[in-house]
């Protein structure tokens, strides 16, 4: 059974002028069909304003579609009785790590979600420990979040979601505000969760390098899904990507340019290692 199923989903913002009068509507998400299975690693790519964050907020019922339906585990996200079940099943990590910290120490912050869903104290302590170990932040459990680096804060935020025992984690541009080191820390943690714990990951990003590891990539443009496929398929369609104002990952771009210049290089190269192997033949 599919974990997340979006059926002809559209979402409209009401645009208002200075006096609060309705000026018009903006379609942020336009007729999107999605089907995500348990254990998938999905990347959603797209330039700013393509509606990818708006779409993500539909997955844990923060927003409801104007048209169409989103099903999580078979529950309609508009069903108010299932709201907390849905939010428990689909956790969300946001862009700015500072604006999602609630506790004054790391441990308290991770405990926030299980406290909200009424888990027993003993079990909360257990979950907090497990979650922090998974993202390799256990030795910082007594620190104040303000003393952590961006990458560490973001990993604590992931632990905070993990402590709910979700089936799926949606990460909305989690690395956009991080330095390269923090970025790779977070992506490593996310991949480990997918590989080891079999947690479904939906990674929203505009960093192409991060999308390489996904099972499937959706490219969004002006609210609709413009391209869909495995990373190899997507990144061999350089022209179309460019139309979506997206650039290829570094290695793939180099391979593409070399091929255009006449070198005999096969299609579908993604990582630096693959490119090296081909070039050193």
């Amino acid at each position: 059974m599919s974990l997340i199923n979006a059926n002809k989903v559209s979402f409209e913002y009401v645009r208002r002028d200075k006096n609060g009068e309705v000026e018009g509507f903006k379609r942020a998400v336009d007729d999107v069909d999605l089907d995500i299975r348990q254990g998938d690693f999905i990347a959603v790519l797209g330039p700013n304003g393509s509606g990818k964050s708006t779409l993500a907020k539909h997955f844990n019922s923060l927003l409801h579609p104007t048209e169409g339906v989103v099903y999580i585990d078979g529950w309609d996200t508009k069903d108010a009785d299932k709201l907390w079940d849905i939010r428990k099943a689909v956790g969300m990590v946001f862009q700015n790590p500072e604006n999602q910290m609630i506790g004054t120490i790391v441990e308290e912050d991770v405990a926030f979600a299980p406290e909200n869903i009424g888990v027993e104290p003993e079990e909360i302590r257990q979950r907090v420990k497990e979650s922090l170990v998974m993202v390799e932040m256990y030795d910082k459990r007594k620190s104040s979040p303000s003393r952590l680096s961006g990458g560490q804060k973001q990993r604590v935020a992931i632990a905070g979601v993990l402590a709910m025992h979700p089936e799926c984690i949606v990460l909305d541009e989690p690395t956009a505000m991080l330095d390269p080191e923090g970025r790779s820390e977070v992506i490593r943690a996310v991949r480990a969760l997918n590989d080891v714990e079999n947690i479904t990951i939906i990674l929203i990003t505009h960093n192409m390098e991060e999308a390489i590891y996904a099972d499937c990539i959706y490219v969004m443009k002006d609210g609709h899904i413009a391209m869909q496929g495995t990373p190899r398929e997507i990144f061999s369609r350089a022209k179309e990507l460019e139309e979506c104002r997206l650039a290829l990952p570094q290695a793939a771009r180099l391979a593409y340019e070399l091929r255009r210049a006449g070198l005999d290089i096969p299609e579908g190269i993604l990582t630096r290692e693959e490119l090296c192997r081909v070039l050193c033949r």
Partner: protein
Amino acid sequence: MIRDITLGQYYPTDSVLHRLDPRVKLCGTMVYVISLFLFQSFTGYIVATVFLVSMIALSHVPVKFMFRGLKAIIFILIFTGILNAFLTPGRELVSFWKITITIEGVRLAAFLVLRIIYLIIGSSIMTLTTTPSNLTDGLEKSLGWLKIFRIPVHEIAMMMSIALTFIPVLVEETDRIIKAQQARGADFESGNIIRRAKAMIPILVPLFVSAFRRANDLAVAMEARCYHGGDGRTKMRPLKYAARDYIAYLVLLGYLAAIIAVGIIF
């Protein structure tokens, strides 16, 4: 510079007072503050002093931290002292020009100043030995009965603890805005008070805007993590009284009894 401001002046160390339940400490501080007004005699001050000194000793916090809180009110202390010494009628001690200092006035002034000092130190013992989050927990739990009057105790406690979390974030932000404005030629240091106050406006406006944006982000993040108010919420470390907390209550009761006795007898 601006980062040196510390709020919720917790002093991290390990002592009996640090380990006490925050509710005991809240109650103890209240009792102590009230007790200071239950006596007039010299003996009463001895009892209150003995209690305060033993609490300071128990807290393992260096004494100079205790007196730090007094710096802010030093003018109030001097002012109250002088006014009381000059304006209390009674037997004359010294007299010059039109001013007379009376024996009763000196006595009253000394006691009043001492009382205020004890008040401040007494309550700073609590804040020095209790983490802010523990303190809000204690407040939430011990004021829980206010819910009958439809006072949103949990929400208030949550707001307090979020405010405490965001103090360092906002302080950093202020620092950043000040630097950004200075880089574009803003002048915060020269001119009189009014000019300097006006110069603060370009700091406050962006600070407010960003604070609201942060508040919105945080609200969404909290909702995404299933926050729905205090109903059905559990705690990772629920407050539970241990044996030492009951002993502390007994000590407190003993102190209160002693003070009341002193107030009646002397």
